C-alpha cells in the first residue's frame, strides 16, 4: 500500500486530493456521492467578511471542454459559515480550508484573525485572484507588491498555514509566487480561472451578465500544468496545491509530477459528482501499478530528467 500522506505547508493531509473552492459548496452538498472523510482536505466556497449576494444571472456559460463562471462570491459571510456550516463539517475529521476574499487589506486581516481563532479550520486559502468581483480581487492578484501586501496582512493575523491562490492572468507567474513566499506564504495554490468571455450571436450580447468570467475545466489544464511546473522549478521548496481542469487520476498525477504536493478537483465535480473519489482511487491504482511506496517521491518527478 502506497503512503499517500502529504504535507502542504504545515497542513498534514492523509492524501493529496482536495476540492477547488467554489465547486464543492460547503462540502455536504456532495455527501450523497462522496465519503467526505476520505478526502485529503475540503476547500470551501470563497468567503468574505460580510454576506454577499453575488452577480446577476446568467452566471455560467459552457464552452468547448470548459465553462465560464461569474458567480461573484455569493456567500453567507465568515460568521455565517462558522455558525451555519462549520459545525456539520467538524465530525468528519477532514481538514477544512477556508478560502477568503477581501475588498481591502484590512478585511483580509480581519478574516485571517477570525479564522485563526476558530479551532475547526485547519488552513487559509487566500483568494487574491477572483476575476469576478469589481473591487480588490483581480488587482491584488496581478500586481506583485499588492499580492505581497495581502499575504503579509494575513500572515500577521494567523499562525495557521497560509496558502495563497494565484491568478494565471499575469505575465510571469513565478514573480507572483516569489512575492508572496517572501512575505510568509506557506504554500501556493494555482491556478485560479482564466479570464474569458462568450457571446450569444443571436442576441448579439455577452452570454454572462458580468460580461467576463473565469474559464475552467479540461480546456485550461495545459496552462495550469505549465504554471505549476514553472513555479516548482523556480521555488522547489515551496509546496504547491495544483489545480486547473483536473478530471482524471492521470491529470492529477501530471500535476504531481510537475511539482504539486496536493491537487484540487474543481469543475470535474460538476461533470461527475464522485470525481474526487474516482481520482483518489485512480492515484492509488497508479502507485500500486508503478510500485511507488511514497507518493511524496513523485512530486516534481518530471523535473529530474
Amino acid at each position, binding site marked *: 500500500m502506497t503512503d499517500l500522506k502529504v504535507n502542504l505547508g504545515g497542513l498534514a493531509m492523509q492524501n493529496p486530493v482536495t476540492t477547488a473552492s467554489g465547486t464543492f459548496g460547503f462540502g455536504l452538498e456532495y455527501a450523497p456521492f462522496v465519503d467526505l472523510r476520505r478526502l485529503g482536505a475540503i476547500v470551501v*466556497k470563497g468567503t468574505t467578511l460580510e454576506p454577499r449576494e453575488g452577480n446577476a444571472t446568467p*452566471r455560467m456559460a459552457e464552452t468547448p*471542454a470548459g*465553462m465560464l463562471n461569474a458567480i461573484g462570491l*455569493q456567500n453567507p459571510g465568515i460568521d455565517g459559515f462558522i455558525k451555519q456550516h462549520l459545525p456539520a463539517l467538524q465530525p468528519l475529521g477532514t481538514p477544512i480550508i477556508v478560502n477568503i476574499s477581501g475588498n481591502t487589506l484590512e478585511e483580509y486581516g480581519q478574516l485571517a484573525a477570525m479564522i485563526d481563532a476558530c479551532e475547526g479550520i485547519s488552513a487559509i486559502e487566500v483568494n487574491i485572484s477572483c476575476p469576478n468581483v469589481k473591487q480588490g480581487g483581480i488587482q491584488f492578484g496581478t500586481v506583485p507588491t499588492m499580492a505581497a501586501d495581502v499575504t503579509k496582512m494575513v500572515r500577521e493575523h494567523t499562525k495557521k498555514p497560509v496558502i495563497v491562490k494565484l491568478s494565471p492572468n499575469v505575465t510571469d507567474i513565478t514573480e507572483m509566487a516569489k512575492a508572496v513566499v517572501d512575505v510568509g506564504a506557506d504554500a501556493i495554490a494555482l491556478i485560479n480561472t482564466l479570464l474569458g468571455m462568450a457571446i450569444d450571436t443571436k442576441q448579439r450580447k455577452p452570454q454572462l451578465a458580468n460580461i467576463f468570467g473565469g474559464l475552467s475545466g479540461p480546456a485550461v489544464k495545459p496552462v495550469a500544468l505549465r504554471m505549476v511546473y514553472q513555479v516548482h522549478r523556480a521555488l522547489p521548496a515551496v509546496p504547491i496545491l495544483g489545480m486547473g481542469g483536473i*478530471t482524471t487520476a492521470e491529470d492529477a498525477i501530471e500535476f504531481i509530477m510537475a511539482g504539486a504536493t496536493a491537487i484540487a478537483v474543481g469543475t470535474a465535480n460538476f461533470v*461527475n459528482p464522485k470525481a474526487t473519489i474516482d481520482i483518489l482511487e485512480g492515484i492509488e491504482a497508479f502507485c500500486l501499478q508503478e510500485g511507488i511506496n511514497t507518493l511524496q517521491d513523485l512530486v516534481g518527478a518530471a523535473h529530474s530528467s
Partner: protein
Amino acid sequence: MQPILYHATVLEQEELKPAIFRIRFMAPELARLCQPGQFIQVRVNAMVDPLLPRPISIHDFDSEAGTVTLLYHRVGKGTAILAQCQPGEQVMIWGPLGRGWTLPEAQDLPAGDLLPIYVAGGIGVAPLLSLAKAWSKVGKPGILLCGGRCEEQLVALEEFQALGVDVDLATEDGSAGHCGRVTALFDHLPLLGKMPLLYTCGPKGMLKAIHELALQKGWPCQVSLEERMCCGLGACLSCVCKREASQEGKTWTHAKVCTDGPVFWSKEVIWDD
C-alpha cells in the same frame, strides 16, 4: 432524501414531434425516490465536450416498473447526443434533485374544494404529468392549459387525458385550439365554485403572466423555474433567482433554483427582469 448516481439503461427513445423526444430509463432505486417536479442530471457522453451534465425534468416515474421518463427538446450539442442514444445503451444519471411541487396531501394548502390547473408552455408540460397523477389519485385530476407556438410543440396531451384531466389548448399560429396565448384560456374556465391552484412551467414571460393573473385573482400559484444550471446540488451557485426575504436590511436574496427550487411559490419570486 439522498440522490443517487446511476448508470441507467435506456429502455426506449422516441421522437414524439419534430425535435421533441421522450426517453425512458431503467433505474429502479432512483424511480423509488422521485417526487413530482424534481429533475435529474444526465451526462450525455463520457467525453469532455460537451462538458456539463444536462438537468432535465422528470416527466414520469414508475416505482413498481423501476422506470424514469424524461421529455426533452433537442436544442443544442448535449441534447443532440442524447437523442442518438439507443435502447440498451447506458447513460450516467443522478438524482432525483431539487424540490418539486406541493402535493395534494400537503398541509399548507388552503381549505375548500381545490381545482388544480396545470399551465404548460411547450416542453414545460414535462414536469406536470406526475403531478397530475398525484392529483388524479385523490379524485381531482384537474385541468391542463397547454400553449405553444404551433401544434407541433404540444406533446403528452393524451397522457393527461388518460388521467381524466380536461385539456385545453392555445397556439400562437392557431394550428391547435385557441389562436393566441395560453393566458387567454382562463377567460372561459369552468371553475364551478372551486378554488384554483395553479402549477406552471414554461418560458419566463409566460410564468410571469400566470403569476400576475394568480395575484390578481388571489389564487395560489407555483412555478417551476429554469436557469442555466451546473452542479444541480446547490454547490456552485450558478442557477439563482431573486426571492423575497425579510431578513434585516434585505428585501431579497439569491435562492438556488436547483435545491431551493426548481418549484417556488410565484409570489416569493421577484419578477423584475
